[in-house]
Structure formats: C-alpha cells, structure tokens
C-alpha cells in the first residue's frame, strides 16, 4: 500500500459492497411483497425504506472512499489527517447502524415513532430522507469532517487539478443540498417542493458532477489520456449538466400544487438533460479509441465505459421519455417511474462506484495483474438482470398507465391481476441480480491480492 490513507478508502469500499448486498436482499423481499403482501415480518414500507436508504448510503460511502483515494493520488500525499479519516469512517458506520435499528423498531411498532422536539424519533416518514433529524445532524457532521479532511489534503501540496476541483465542488454542493430536507413545513405542497430540491439536485446535479470528475479520473488513470483534454470536456459536461439540471427540477413541479409556469420551465430544461450524458459516452469512446497502448485493467475500462453508456440510457433516455408534461400527466407515479429509477441509479451510480472499485483497489493492494474473470461475470449477471427488471417494470408501467389512467380501472385491480406476471418476473430477475452482487462481494475481498503461492 503506497499510502496509509488508502486503507480508509478500502474500508469505505468494503462497507459499500456489503450494504449493496443488503439493499438487493431487501429489494427481493419488496418484490415478493407485491405478490404476497404479508410475506415478511416487516411491512412493505419498512422494507422499501431499507432498500432505498441502503442504496443511497452505500453510494455515498463509495463516493467517500473514491474521494479519499483520488485526493491522495492527485495531491501525491497522505490525507491531511489519517486518524480523522478512520474516525469519520467508524462514526458513519455507527450512525448508519443506529438509524437502521430505528427503522426496524418503528416497523415492528409504529407507536415507538414518537414526536420529540417537533420531529419524529425513528423515521421521518419522507421518502429517501426517512432518517430522523438527530441522524441528519450526525450525517452532516460526518460529511463536514470528510470535506475538511479532503480540502486540507489538497491544500497540503496545492496541486489544484481540475478533477479535484470538480469532485470537491460536487461534494460541497451535495452537502449543501441536504439542508433543504431538514425542516418541517405544515403544507404538504411546500414539503414536497423542498424535498425535491434534495432528491433532484442530488441525482441530477451534484452527483453528476462527482460522476463526471470520477469518469475523467478513471479515463486518465486507465488510458493515460492528456489531462488538459479530459479537463476541457469535463467542464463542458458539468456545465451542461447544471445548465439543464438545475431548472430541470421543474419536471417535479407539474402536479404538486405549484404554479403552471413550471410546466414550461421543467419541460424545456429537463428535455435537454440527456445531452451532457451523451457527451460523456462520446468522451469515453473517444479517449478509448485514441489510446494506442494496451490496457492492463480491462475490467476497469469496461466498467467505466458501461457506466457512461448506462448513465445515458437509464437517466437520459428512460428519463426523457416521461419528462414532458403531456406524457408525465399520464405516467406520473406509476411503475414507469420505478423502471427509470432503477436503470438510472444502476447506470449512473452503481456502475460508477463498481468501476472505481475495480480501477483503484488493485493499485491499493499493489497487484496490477489480478484475475479479472469474476469481475466480468459479476458485471454481466448484474447488467443483464437489471435490463430485464427494467423491461419487465416498464411493461408493468405501460399496462398500469393504460388501464388505470386511460381506461379508469381501479388501482388495486390492475396491480393484483393484470400486473401479477410482471411482479413474478421481477422477483426472478432479482435473484439473478443477487448472483452478480455476490460475485462482486467475493471480489472486493480478493482482487489485487496475489495468489498465496
């Protein structure tokens, strides 16, 4: 290990992958509850909360691990404070553990979710940001310590690279955009208005900045592409991401009680959101094609390019199909949304973190010629299964939109009869996805470790 700090990155990655496993296991339970609602001791809402919270947390932890790696490598120095890094890791793990216990207690006995100081003790009852206020504060402290450590590391050697700039800028934006979710409003309309600031400005704003920075970092590390060229395109990409994404927020303000002009603002700007994502795909292909030297870490490059492609398909294409108000009016809040949510998160962020793991863990462990075959297998199991889940759920969403929204059939009837087969197929493909995650989990413990011989 070149830097001690990389042990912290490794700890973050390992926890990420284990949480990914938890996420997918509860995802399968959630899928089965569509067929048998009483399938498990915890009700669907608790299972779903665990599913989406573990997703967000493991992606964030993956980003933290990746950042610790990137700043040390780009600044060519240890972290500003290695003990602080370890502390921040363990504090995060403990806080996350406490929140999970809270969700389970609340799921078993909702009465335990009492009101303290005007907020809920165990579960805030708001999608994605279910974590109670005390946990919000712990999360903010943890993120501030993380940002402090990263910024001070850059200040140590003052190598202000473009990648570090955009990466830390994105992370700061991320931390700031957590705040609009941290106060109570009496109006459900205002509640959802601010809630979307967090959710949308994360995945279609700050997280995309982080993705663009890590994409440039990986392309440089894998292919040795000139940083100048990478930096220029990265700036163009993130510039367009924010130009389209910030006002693209309007695509969530069509029907929640907000004024009509949002139909125009949201429709126009969000329709342009796929453009920067397409640029990233082109960027990945161009740099790969222009490279003459043979690439050693083939799986790393494979995942990097796959991330760019599926970011465009899942977020860009599956997003743009239902982003115009004329379409969204009929599809809003149906399984079409679920299909998009899955492919977008998978392409944009799951593959991003998995790519970072395969690009950096071998160099952390010091073995450049690791066995890559399990990585490829894991990738294909996950990707094929996810594509089929998304096709299945898109089908369910089309049936639902037609029968419920156009024909006026009852929600429960459509779900219980006409969509039943889709639920069965989702559960089956979910099992396939689990196989891929298990392989990834096995790999994180072994890649880069030389055979014992």
């Amino acid at each position, binding site marked *: 290990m070149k830097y001690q700090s990389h042990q912290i990155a490794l700890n973050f990655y390992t926890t990420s992958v284990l949480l990914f496993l938890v996420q997918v296991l509860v995802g399968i339970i959630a899928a089965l509850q569509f067929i048998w609602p009483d399938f498990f001791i915890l009700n669907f809402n608790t299972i779903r909360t665990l599913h989406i919270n573990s997703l967000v947390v493991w992606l964030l932890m993956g980003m933290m691990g990746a950042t610790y790696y990137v700043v040390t490598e780009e600044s060519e120095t240890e972290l500003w404070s290695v003990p602080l890094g370890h502390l921040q890791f363990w504090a995060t793990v403990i806080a996350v553990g406490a929140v999970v216990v809270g969700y389970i207690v609340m799921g078993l006995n909702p009465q335990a979710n009492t009101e303290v100081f005007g907020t809920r003790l165990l579960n805030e*009852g708001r999608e994605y940001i279910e974590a109670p206020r005390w946990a919000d504060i712990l999360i903010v402290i943890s993120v501030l310590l993380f940002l402090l450590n990263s910024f001070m590391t850059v200040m140590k050697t003052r190598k202000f690279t473009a990648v570090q700039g955009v990466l830390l800028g994105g992370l700061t934006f991320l931390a700031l955009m957590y705040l609009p979710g941290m106060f109570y409003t009496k109006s459900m309309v205002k509640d959802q208005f601010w809630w979307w600031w967090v959710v949308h400005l994360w995945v279609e704003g700050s997280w995309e900045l982080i993705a663009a920075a890590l994409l440039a970092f990986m392309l440089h590390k894998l292919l040795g592409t000139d940083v100048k060229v990478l930096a220029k395109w990265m700036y163009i990409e993130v510039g367009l991401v924010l130009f389209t994404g910030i006002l693209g927020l309007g695509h969530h303000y069509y029907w929640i009680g907000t004024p009509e002009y949002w139909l125009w603002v949201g429709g126009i700007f969000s329709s342009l959101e796929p453009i920067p994502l397409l640029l990233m795909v082109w960027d990945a292909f161009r740099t790969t094609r222009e490279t003459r030297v043979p690439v050693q870490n083939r799986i790393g490059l494979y995942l990097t390019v796959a991330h760019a492609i599926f970011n465009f398909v899942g977020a860009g294409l599956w997003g743009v199909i239902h982003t115009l108000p004329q379409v969204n009016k009929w599809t809003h809040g149906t399984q079409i949304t679920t299909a998009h949510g899955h492919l977008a998160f998978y392409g944009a962020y799951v593959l991003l973190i998995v790519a970072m793991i395969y690009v950096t863990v071998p160099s952390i462990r010091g073995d450049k010629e690791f066995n890559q075959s399990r990585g490829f297998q894991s990738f294909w199991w996950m990707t094929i299964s996810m594509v089929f889940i998304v096709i299945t759920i898109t089908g369910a969403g089309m049936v639902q939109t037609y029968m419920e929204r156009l024909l006026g059939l009852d929600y429960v009837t459509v779900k219980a009869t006409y969509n039943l087969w889709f639920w069965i197929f989702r559960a089956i493909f979910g099992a396939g996805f689990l196989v891929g995650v298990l392989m990834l989990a096995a790999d994180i413990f072994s890649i880069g470790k030389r055979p014992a011989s």
Partner: protein
Amino acid sequence: MSTNAAKNLFIYGSLLCFVVLVILTIDTMGKLDKRAPEITEEVNAGKKVWHKYDCIGCHTIFGNGSYFAPDMTKATERKPKEYLKKFLLDPRVIKADSAMPKLGLNEQEADDLIAFLDWTSKVDTNDWPPKPILASAIAGKAASAGQALFQKHDCSACHQIQGIGGAAGPDLTQVGARRPDIDWHIRHLKDPSSVVRDSAMPAFTDMNDEELKALAEFLITLK
C-alpha cells in the same frame, strides 16, 4: 474553446441558473397559499400522523412516493369519510384480503388524517390526476332507471361490474345470483348495518322508495 473558458462558463453559468431557480422559488412560495385551502390545526395534525406511520412508504401523494398502494391525493373525493375512517382503523375488517395492514391508528389520528387528505384533495394540482379519457368513451348509456341510479350515486367508486369500478366492496358482477331478494337490497341500501353486521358501506338515505326499488331491481339482474 480553451479549458479555462470552459471552466468559467461552467462556474458562472451554473451560478446564474441557480440564481434563476432561487427567484422562481421565491415567486412560487408567494403563490402557493392561494392554490390551496387554509391549513387548520387539524390538517397539520393529520400531516404529522401521515409522517408518523410512514404512509409514503406504500402510497403516493401528489403522485410522489411509493407505488405499492393507490395515490392518496384525492382519497376523500369519491369515498365517504365514515368509510375511510373505518378502513384506516382496521383495513382487513372491511376487506379481508386488503394488502394494507392494521397500523394501530386511534380514532383521533384517523379523523386528523381524513382532514389532511381532504385538504390535499382541494389543492390546485393543474388537474392531476387526469380524468381517464377512454372511460367516458366506452361507458354506455344507462339501459334502465336502476342503472342510471347506480351511476348517479357512484356505486362504482367501491364496486366492480365486469372489471370496471373500485375494489373496496364486493364485486357485483353476479350479485343477483348471490342475493336474489329485492327487499334485502332495499333494506341494505337504506341501512347496510341492519342486514350486514358492521358493514362499512355508507347508507343511501336520500333515495325515495321508488328509486330504491328501481336500483334493487337492477342489482338482481346482475348474474
């Protein structure tokens, strides 16, 4: 374009967009209260109950949330409050195969929730959810006075006939075979609990005898 130009465009362009967002947000905040009824203490209490039991973990409201259960934005529009209250207190007493579990709400919480849901149903949502366009195209004209009453009183909010209608009450496609007695239907419509213990169906007291008879006659033809 040079790297530096791209960088400046990114930084200042993004800041500009963010400023525009803040301006639109301020404008929107000023307009929201006019698009919704006043928020009483009861409505606010109901919103807190909504959060306490994590209703969003199964339902959507304004179309946002989870897709495991029906949207709640207009929940009070087609169903009477007494019915909703009974359902919230214990869904499976009303509908044995309901996928919603008993969550342990008390009476006060149920009343507050209904006040809250009544509030959301009156928010100006730019006409969402939309009226099903094909439903009106295929709904035939009523063939009898009884069927007209069935439509007028929106029985299909809770009942299905041949796949069309809600699922809160039993499917009526073959109710005539199950319950061929006209008098039973008349008594049931006037006061459901007098013939079905703890019935959650609302009483239809505003129909006169003639209308009740016509409706009951229509029901027994369903077989």
